[in-house]
C-alpha cells in the first residue's frame, strides 16, 4: 500500500477509535452535563425536604440556593428536633399524605422504615444506566453506605453524614495538668483522670455526654457496652445478652461517670450536651464527629475553638471498639416527585458538591473526601476519624452491627433507653435495670417472631 493510503487509513482508524471512545464517554454525563439535563427537565418544580436540627442539615441549607440555581428546582424545608422526626415521617406515611419528598433519615430507623415501606427502595435508582459510575456509589465509606443505609442488600438511604464515635477533649486543660493521651487509653485510666479533674477548674465538669431517656441514653450506653465486652444479641439467635456481667459493668461505668458530670445531664439530648461542651463547661465530651467542625469554628464556639483535640474511645476489658452510624437522605415512598427527590439526593451527596458541603460544616462520607488534600488541611479531625473507623472495623469484624438495623430497633431502643435512664438517675440498680430491659427486649423479639 502506498504510504499516503496507509497514513490515511491509520488516521481514519484513529478517528474511528477516538469517536467510539468519545461516544462511550458521552453515555456517562459529567456532573455539569447532568445538571444541565436536570434543569431542562425539571426547572420550575418544587419539592419538600424535611430534616432534623443538626450541623449537617445547616450545611445543606446553605447549599440550597446553589441547588435552586443549578437545577431550577425550588426546595421547601421543614426542620424538627431529632426526636420528633421519626414520628413525623411515620405519621406522614400512615396518613398517606406524601407531604415530604426527601427526608433526613437516621440509620436507627432504616430497618423499621424499610419493613414498613416508608422509604423508597433506591437500589434501582443507583443502578440506573449511566448513573452508577459518575455518581460513584462505591466511593462511599462502606461503614456508612452498606453498613448504615442498606438493608437486605437494598439501599434505603444514602449517607450524607458519616458518624463514628469518639471523645473530644480540652487540650488546654489537659496540658495544664500534664495529662497526655497515653493516660487515657484504657477505661480504667480514663475514669482515673476524670476523677482527678473533678473540681480542678471552676465551673468546669470533667465529662459530659447525651443521656436523656430513650435514644440518647442508648447511644451513650453503647459506647461503653462493647469495650467492656458486652453485646446486645448473640449472633444468629437474637437472644438479648444484657444481663451478662460485662453489660452490667458497662452500665455501672456509665453511671459512675455521672458523678463527674454537670447537674441534670440526665436530661441532655445531643443539643444540650453539645452546648455544654461548647460553652467550655466540660473537659471530655463523649460523642461523635459531626459536632467537631462547629467546635473548631471560632465564630460558633468562641470559648473552645483551637483548644480541642480528639481521643479514641478508650480500650475496655472487652476490647478496643468504637461505634459507627450515619444520617442518610431517603426518599418517601409516598412522594409524588420521586425523581426530583432523587436529583436532590444525588446533588447533596455527590463528589462534586462534597467540597462545599464539608466546608459548610458537613461530615465526610466518601473515601475521596478523606483523600482530598485541601479538605484534609481544613479539617484537622479527619485523620482522627480514620483511626476511630479502624476501631469501628474491629467491632464489625466480629460480626456485630453497632446498633442492629432490624425493624424492631425503635421499640428496643425505647425500652432499653428507659431502663438505662432509670439506672442512670438512680431509680434502679444497673442489675435490675438491665434485667428488666432484657426481658422487655426478649418480649419484643418474641412477638416479632424471632423465636
Amino acid at each position, binding site marked *: 500500500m502506498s504510504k499516503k493510503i496507509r497514513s490515511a487509513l491509520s488516521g481514519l482508524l484513529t478517528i474511528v477509535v477516538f469517536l467510539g471512545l468519545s461516544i462511550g464517554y458521552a453515555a456517562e454525563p459529567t456532573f455539569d452535563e447532568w445538571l444541565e439535563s436536570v434543569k431542562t427537565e425539571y426547572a420550575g418544580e418544587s419539592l419538600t425536604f424535611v430534616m432534623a436540627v443538626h450541623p449537617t442539615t445547616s450545611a445543606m441549607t446553605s447549599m440550597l440556593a446553589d441547588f435552586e440555581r443549578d437545577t431550577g428546582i425550588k426546595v421547601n424545608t421543614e426542620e424538627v428536633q431529632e426526636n420528633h422526626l421519626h414520628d413525623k415521617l411515620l405519621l406522614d406515611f400512615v396518613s398517606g*399524605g406524601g*407531604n415530604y419528598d426527601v427526608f433526613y433519615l437516621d440509620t436507627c430507623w432504616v430497618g423499621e422504615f424499610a419493613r414498613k415501606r416508608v422509604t423508597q427502595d433506591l437500589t434501582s435508582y443507583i443502578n440506573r444506566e449511566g448513573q452508577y459510575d459518575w455518581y460513584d456509589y462505591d466511593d462511599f465509606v462502606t461503614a456508612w453506605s452498606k453498613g448504615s443505609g442498606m438493608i437486605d442488600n437494598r439501599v434505603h438511604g444514602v449517607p450524607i453524614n458519616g458518624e463514628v464515635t469518639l471523645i473530644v477533649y480540652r487540650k488546654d486543660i489537659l496540658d495544664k495538668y500534664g495529662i497526655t493521651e497515653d493516660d487515657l487509653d484504657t477505661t480504667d485510666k480514663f475514669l482515673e483522670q476524670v476523677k482527678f479533674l473533678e473540681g480542678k477548674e471552676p465551673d468546669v465538669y470533667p465529662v459530659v455526654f447525651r443521656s436523656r431517656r430513650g435514644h440518647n441514653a442508648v447511644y451513650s450506653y453503647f459506647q461503653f457496652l462493647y469495650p467492656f465486652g458486652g453485646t446486645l444479641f448473640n449472633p444468629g439467635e437474637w437472644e438479648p445478652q444484657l444481663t451478662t456481667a460485662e453489660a452490667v459493668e458497662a452500665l455501672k461505668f456509665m453511671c459512675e461517670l455521672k458523678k463527674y458530670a454537670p447537674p441534670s445531664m440526665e436530661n441532655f439530648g445531643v443539643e444540650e450536651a453539645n452546648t455544654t461542651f461548647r460553652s467550655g463547661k466540660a473537659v471530655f465530651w463523649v460523642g461523635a464527629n459531626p459536632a467537631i467542625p462547629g467546635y473548631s469554628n471560632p465564630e460558633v464556639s468562641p470559648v473552645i475553638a483551637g483548644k480541642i483535640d480528639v481521643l479514641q474511645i478508650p480500650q475496655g476489658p472487652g476490647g478496643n471498639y468504637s461505634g459507627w452510624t450515619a444520617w442518610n437522605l431517603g426518599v418517601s415512598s409516598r412522594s409524588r416527585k420521586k425523581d426530583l427527590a432523587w436529583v436532590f439526593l444525588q446533588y447533596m451527596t455527590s463528589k462534586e458538591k462534597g467540597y462545599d458541603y464539608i466546608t459548610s460544616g458537613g461530615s465526610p462520607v466518601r473515601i475521596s473526601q478523606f483523600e482530598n488534600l485541601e479538605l484534609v488541611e481544613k479539617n484537622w479531625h479527619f485523620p482522627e476519624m480514620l483511626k476511630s473507623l479502624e476501631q469501628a472495623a474491629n467491632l464489625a469484624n466480629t460480626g456485630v452491627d453497632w446498633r442492629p438495623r432490624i425493624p424492631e430497633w425503635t421499640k428496643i431502643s425505647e425500652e432499653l433507653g428507659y431502663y438505662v435512664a432509670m439506672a442512670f438517675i438512680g431509680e434502679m440498680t444497673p442489675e435490675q435495670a438491665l434485667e428488666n430491659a432484657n426481658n422487655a427486649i426478649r418480649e419484643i423479639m418474641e412477638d416479632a417472631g424471632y423465636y
Partner: protein
Amino acid sequence: MDGSHKRKFFRVCGAIGSLILIIIFSLPFLWMISMSFKTPLDCVKIPPVVLFKPVLTNYTDLFNRINFGNYMQNSIVVSLTATIVSMIISLPAAYVFARIRKKYKNKIILLVLSVRMAPAMSLVIPFFVLSNAVGILDTQLALIITYLSFNIPLIFWMMQGYFSQLPVEIEEAAYIDGCSSFGIFTRIALPLTVSGLSATAILCLIQSWNEFVYALFLTSIRSRTLPTTIMIFLGHEGIQWGQMTAATTLITLPVVFLAFLVKDYLVRGMAMGGIKE
C-alpha cells in the same frame, strides 16, 4: 395600738398582698410580651433587660420564615366553625331539656358530662384511626368534628341553666297568641339569654383555640393550628426566644382578651361544664 392604726396596717398589708398576687399572675404574661420585642441577644441577658430598644423582627420572621399566617388562619376557621356548628346543634337541645321534666334527665346529664370529661388522650387514638380510614387526616374538617365532642356538652350545660331560669309565663303567653314552639324559641328564649349565649360562645372559642392534643395528632402541615406550633421551636432553645415569645404572644393574646370580656361567666362555664383546656 388603737383601732385606726391597726386598720391602716391591715390595709397596707392588704394592698401589698394584692400587689403580690397581681404580679404573680400577670408578670409571666407581660414578661413574655416584652421578650417578643427584644433582639435575640437581649432576650438571654443576665440580669434581665427591662429597658431596651424594641424590634419587630421577631414578628416579621414568624410570618415570613415560618408559615405562621397559615396556622393562624387554621385556628380561626376551626374555632369559629366548631363553635357555630356546636351552637346550632346544642341550643335547641338545651332549650328542650330545660323545659321538660322526665326521669331520664339524669341519664342525659351523665352522658353529656362523660363525653365532656373524657380525656382527649383516650379518644384521640380512635379518632386518629378513623380519620385516617376516612382520609381526613390533616384537614380542618377532622379537627372541627373532634372539637364538637367538647363544645356541644359545654353549650348544652351552660344554656340549659340559662334557659331554665327564664320565666315560663312569657312563653305561655306567646303560645296562647298562636306562636309556634320554634317561634317561641327563636323570638323569645334566645333573645332573652343573649348575654349568656355570647359568653358561652366565647368560652367555646377559647377552648377550641387552646386545644392541643387533638391538634397534635390529627394535623401535620396543612391544617396545623396555633398551639402545636411550639413544637417548631423545641429544637432551637436559647437561639430563638424572641421568635418563640412572639409566637406565644400571638397565640395567647386573643384568648386572654376574650376571657377578659367574659370573666364573670368564666367560673360558671368552666365549673358547670367541667374543665377543658
